[in-house]
Structures are given as structure tokens and as C-alpha cells.
């Protein structure tokens, strides 16, 4: 977790609560003036400016349809931005072709809302599939060791030969995270990691996010509606409203916001 806590002024022009702490680490993600619209000229993102520093856990909050998922999908090129810059590892990914983008993608892990495990493959094959494609020189033993290590880090080594259909929701999330970890990403993007899970499993997943961050020293962006997850995992929170970033700060600072709408997330 980031320990340095000096705030700096950010956005919005509204009198939202105390601005963010200036973390003394290099930024790994730097978004400037990001716009995205889909059909009927409806802007989903309206000029997002955001910086995420190395080793930071950033939580993005907002109502459904506020553009949270679109924001992180823009970071890996799943959704193409209309305007603006997205610098990841000092490279503006909006200017890259697909092949160049892939060199960035292997450094970013993405945990999907429904885990997106490959249905036709066992857990072992789900993990070896990306690994074998990106590390062709690895021996079978090295592949096996990597799979074991990834599964051990999420505490599910016993599920190695199961099919995704045999796993519970929480187990699927863990395996999804193990698949993400197998390529040793420097950034992990979590799309609603605790959605659809019971309170206890949600807490376990939140704790797992923290332990992964400590173990692998990753930078994380966590999209969530789960305030317990946000409190536990977030070094910093940002809140989106209709595609605009309206508030930013620590959990405690935003909880005491003067804005009733912001406070409503914490009730």
C-alpha cells in the first residue's frame, strides 16, 4: 500500500472534498482529456484526466453507466478513445497499432467482471494458454511451476484439473486472477471483482487483491460498487458521474464530503 500521503489539488471546479495526496512515485498511467462516445452521440466519458502512480491502488466508483468500465477498457485498447491521450508506461497507446499495443497489453492484467474463463479449457489450460503463447522458450516443467505458483497465490491449487463450469463464483474470480498473474503484469485492472459474491467471499477477494499487490508490487485500478472492497483496497478513490470525474480523495476524506451525492456512496 502507498504510505506517503500528501494531497494535491485535482479537478472538477466544484467544491468537492479535499484533494488528493501527492504520492511520490512515478506515474504509470496518465490520462489526459479522454472522451468516448458510442451511438447517438452519447458521450460516455467527457474529458477524463487521471494519473495513477506506480504501486498505487486506485478505486473508481460511480453509478451504473457512468463510464467506469469503458475507462479501463480504453486502457487496454478494448475500446478506442475518440479524443485524448492515454499514456501507459510513458507510451500513448491511442497512437499504437494492434501489434504495438500487444507489447503493452502483456504488461497489464485484466480481471473481468464474470472472470471470462475459457469454458472449453480446464483451469490448467486456462493458465497455460496465455503463458505458452508469450513464453515459448519455457520448458514444460517451468510452465507447470508457473501454473502451480499462480494457483497457490490465489489458494486454489486443488482446482487445477477442474472445468470452469465446476467452479463457484468466488473460485472463478480467483482463477481469473491467477490467469491474470501468470504473465506477471505490472498493472492489474479489476472490473467489479466482488460483484455477485456473498459478503464473506467479497472480503476474501478484496484481501486477495491486497495480498497480490504486496506480493507482486503491482499497480491496480479497481472498478467497484462494493464500498467494503473500496475501503479495504483503495489508496485513493475517484468518483465518476455521467462520464465526468467529480470527486477524488481518500476513503475517509470522501466519506466526509460536503457534497450529499458523494456522501451517498458511503451510506
Amino acid at each position, binding site marked *: 500500500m502507498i504510505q506517503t500521503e500528501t494531497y494535491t489539488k485535482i479537478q472538477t471546479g466544484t467544491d468537492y472534498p479535499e484533494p488528493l495526496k501527492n504520492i511520490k512515485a512515478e506515474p504509470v498511467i496518465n490520462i489526459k482529456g479522454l472522451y468516448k462516445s458510442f451511438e447517438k452521440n452519447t458521450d460516455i466519458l467527457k474529458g477524463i484526466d487521471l494519473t495513477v502512480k506506480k504501486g498505487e491502488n486506485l478505486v473508481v466508483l460511480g453509478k451504473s453507466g457512468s463510464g467506469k468500465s469503458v475507462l479501463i477498457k480504453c486502457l487496454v485498447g478494448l475500446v478506442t478513445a475518440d479524443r485524448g491521450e492515454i499514456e501507459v508506461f510513458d507510451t500513448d497507446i491511442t497512437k499504437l497499432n494492434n501489434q504495438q499495443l500487444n507489447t503493452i497489453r502483456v504488461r497489464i492484467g485484466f480481471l473481468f467482471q464474470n472472470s471470462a474463463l475459457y469454458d472449453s479449457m480446464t483451469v490448467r489450460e486456462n493458465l497455460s*494458454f*496465455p503463458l505458452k503463447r508469450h513464453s515459448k522458450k519455457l520448458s514444460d516443467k517451468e510452465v507447470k511451476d508457473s501454473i502451480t505458483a499462480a494457483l497457490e497465490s490465489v489458494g486454489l491449487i486443488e482446482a487445477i484439473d477442474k472445468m470452469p463450469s465446476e467452479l463457484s463464483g468466488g473460485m472463478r474470480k480467483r482463477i481469473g486472477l491467477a490467469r491474470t498473474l501468470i504473465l506477471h503484469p505490472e498493472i492489474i485492472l479489476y472490473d467489479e471483482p466482488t460483484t455477485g459474491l456473498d459478503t464473506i467471499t467479497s472480503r476474501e477477494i478484496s484481501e486477495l487483491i491486497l495480498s497480490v499487490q504486496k506480493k507482486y508490487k503491482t499497480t491496480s485500478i479497481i472498478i467497484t460498487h462494493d464500498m467494503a472492497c473500496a475501503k479495504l483496497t483503495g489508496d485513493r478513490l475517484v468518483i465518476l458521474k455521467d462520464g465526468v470525474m467529480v470527486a477524488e480523495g481518500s476513503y475517509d476524506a470522501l466519506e466526509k464530503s460536503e457534497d450529499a451525492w458523494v456522501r451517498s456512496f458511503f451510506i
Partner: protein
Amino acid sequence: MDTVLKKVFTDTGSVTLFITRFFKEVFRPPFEFKEFFRQCYSIGYKSFPLVAITGFIMGLVLTIQTRPTLAEFGAESWLPGMVALSLIREISPVITALICAGKISSGIGAELGSMKVTEQIDAMEVSAINPYKYLVVTRVLATTLMVPMLVVLADAIGILGGFAGINIHSDVTMYRYFSQVLASLDFIDILPATVKTIFFGFFIGMIGCYKGFTAANGTESVGKAANSAVVTASLAIFIIDMLAVQLTDIFFISK
């Protein structure tokens, strides 16, 4: 009207880009041999029993239905040749392709549609794995290779079905039956009919993949993708067949 026209042009452009991408990707490494062979097994081997049963029934029924008419003209001896020609030139390729459209194209449409809806295709993309190459190229190549093979097998089993049909009312030896079949066939009867099945296979795979790959979000779209794949692939088979027959007529038969 504008919206309809816009949709027609957008869809045409989208299909064209999807097909063009296949020819770009197919020769570019890495080659997914393992997945290709897995698809060949799934598409070819697993469809064989269905195609074999249908082929046998086609030959049997065609013989039984045609026999009385030929008998009226005292031309019963033409029956083996007629059955073989009908099966090889037209019936077997089209019926087998339609069965494949129903089984394979809808299966691919539903599988890829489901992968799209559950973000499995996106998961490949963010892992820097080319989903088009892994999912589409392998399946289209497999259908392009396996459908002609299934048609050849259906031809053979259909002719065998014809032998069974003839022997219901007559007593013809297998040697005599097959001698008459082979005597009635020319290279020209087999080549164009086999070549067109390559196109059948290509479009069966391509349409299934396109429908699945472009499925909208939501589980309802998976069913729609599967259904639409069967309808479009079946229509494509008839259109390709019509063109193939015309071209064969111009280049081979008219001469």
C-alpha cells in the same frame, strides 16, 4: 429508408472486412495447428455419423423413387449411373452442406457468440492473443477442408445406399453395380462438384464465425447468432450452387 440503406452498406462493409482479414491472417505466423486439428476432429469426425446416415438414406430413397419411372421405359439398367450422377453432381454436395450449415455453422455461431457475451474473446485480446487467428482462422480452415471430405464420404455412402435400394426389387451384384456407376462417371462430373464444396465449407465456417464474433451483448444474442448463421449459410449454399452450376455449364458442359 436511409436507415435501412445505411445498415445494408454497413453490414456489407463489415462482412467484407471480416473476410479480408481472414486472408491477411491465414498466412501470418504464429499458426495455431493444435486448435486447427482439434476443430477438424470436432467438425469432421463428429459430423460423420450424421452425414453417413443421411447419405445412405439419400441414395436409397433416390433409387426407390426413380426406379418405377425408368422401368416404364425399360431403362432400369441406367439406374446405377443415374443415381451416382445425381448424387455426385448435386444432391450429395447440397444436402451435406445444408446439414453442415445446420450443425456446424450454428454451433460455431453459438460458441463464439457465447464467448463474446461472456467476454472470453476480450480476455484473449487483453492477453495479447489474436482471437481472430485462434478462433476464426482455425475454424474456417477446418470447415473448408472437412466439408469437401464429408461430401466425398456422403457420395460414397449414398451410392452404397443406391445399391441397397436396387437390391430391394432386383438382384444385382456389387461388382456389376459399381461397374455401371464408374462407367457412367466422367472427371467433369466429379471436379466441379467437389470444387464447389470447398466454397460451401469456407462460407459455412465464415458465416458461423462472423455471426458469433459480431454477436451483441446479452444472452439473447447467442441464440440469434446461431439461428442467423444457419439461415444465412443455407442461403449462401444455394447461391454458390447456382453460380457453380452456371459456371460449370459455361466452361465444361456447353463445350
